[in-house]
């Protein structure tokens, strides 16, 4: 019984991911990507990590998919020539190697006797981890985010100066 929900979510999310890569129209691809992110957040809900699930929804669907959609609408739909044969072979090789490594991972983790920890989620432990263990990381991250915002604005503003 423990496997049914994750397996169903896995089928749902991987179908959405495949569709996002294979759809003819980029806008529909972006919608499928949003559905994929939704599936991931359902995974996090099922793992009883509500903060992560909601953060995933807010950032991915609220910001990244909107950005992608905006870019698709500027760049224009349906103007791609797909297919790079040698690289598809390489992709297949990568796929095979990944399946192999997965089999190894299965052999190790599948033999362990693991049960999900009953540790309840608490906002306090998250804040403690961020402030005490990752204080420096979050400062670096803040600088990085600011820099990326400046970079993105600088790149996107060029047109306004030219015209």
């Amino acid at each position, binding site marked *: 019984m423990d496997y049914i929900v994750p397996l169903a979510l896995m089928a749902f999310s991987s179908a959405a991911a495949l569709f996002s890569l294979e759809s003819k129209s980029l*806008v529909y691809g972006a*919608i499928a990507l*949003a559905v994929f992110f939704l599936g991931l957040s359902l995974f996090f809900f099922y793992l009883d990590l*509500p*903060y992560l699930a*909601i*953060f995933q*929804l*807010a950032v991915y*669907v*609220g*910001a990244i*998919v*909107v950005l992608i*959609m*905006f870019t698709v*609408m500027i760049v224009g739909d349906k103007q791609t020539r797909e297919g790079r044969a040698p690289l598809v072979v390489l992709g297949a090789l990568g796929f095979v190697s990944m399946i192999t490594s997965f089999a190894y991972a299965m052999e190790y983790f599948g033999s362990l006797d693991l049960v999900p920890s009953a540790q309840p989620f608490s*906002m306090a432990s998250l804040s403690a981890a961020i402030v005490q263990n990752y204080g420096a990381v979050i400062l670096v991250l803040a600088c990085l985010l600011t820099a990326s915002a400046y970079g993105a604005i600088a790149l996107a503003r060029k047109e306004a100066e030219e015209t």
Partner: protein
Amino acid sequence: MDDYSRPFFRAIAVTSLLVTATALYLLKGDIMNALEVLLTDPLAITATGLFRALVFPGLLFISVVPLMAEWVERKFVARVQVRVGPLYVGGPEGLLQPVADMFKLLFKEIIIPKNADRPIFLMAPVFAFVLGALPTIVIPYSPSMVIWNYGYGVLLFFAILAFFPLDVLLAAWSSNNKYSFIGGLRALYQQASYEIPIFLSALPAVMLAGSFRLADIAQAQSKVWFVFLAPVSAAVFFVSMLAEMERIPFDMPEADSELVSGWTTEYSGMAWGLYQFSIYVKMLAFAGIFVVFFLGGWTGPPVLPAVAWSLVKVSVVILVLLSTRAFWPRIRIDQLIRAGWGRLIPLAILNILLLVLFQHYLPGVVG
């Protein structure tokens, strides 16, 4: 029903089937419980989960309030502009005008532009309505009158809020009309940039109450409302709320003198009606959350029951929200963006810093 409307109503049917199936799955315990209560003690039905989901904070309530709000808005704006407003339909003062409007919209033809992207064009209003109705499930109207007393209701509310720009952008793009698209881009700028101040200005309420559960936040204000402890945050929240709802000082996305009617230009009939409906449902959700964050939720002197206090406060907030339409002119989009990033976000952050200092150095005085 004409040929053009059929796909739209099919879209509505599919969505409502999905929503109903999900609701049945989630409420399966509650339904049996409600049946049992109905057979033994019919008066206790208000305490069951099914009643909450279907009648009071749930479905019936959020369907009726928009109609009432539309009537109040038209009447109020008319009085401010020395007009009479709706007068003829249904009893005194045209009370049933919104119902008549709804029936008119239901029977109108839904025109789909030739180059529109049909599936997205038809699904976008349906999703807008579902998204507008979703926040209602976490908003408490009394300690027991809440559909889902979720421990992270604040976060869930803002996560749902993040979906709106996506829906607007899709509706605007699928219409294949330049007015729609410009309106949609404006809505995107506006909603995406005002999500940040609205979240930052909600944080003081969370910090003062020490919980992400909306019911706890309301309960924590039984002594003093947070609007007195964090007035600047309340003001920032209110302004951002107006911008998120695209009410009149900030209605650039729909600016009817510039953009026909913004991203809803190509929508007609009930598809347009659903968008209007979703705007009012969203307003109800925002008014409810403002009351919970800053006006004490259901707390008040015990002359009225808790639910009545909530309803009174929500009505007052909705009335203030509606009144801005009569009193303010529209501002420009660049002014709006500058105000959002340059004024509201620094103000909200400053407020949080002050609150942290107060809580650290004067514990007991606040929070």
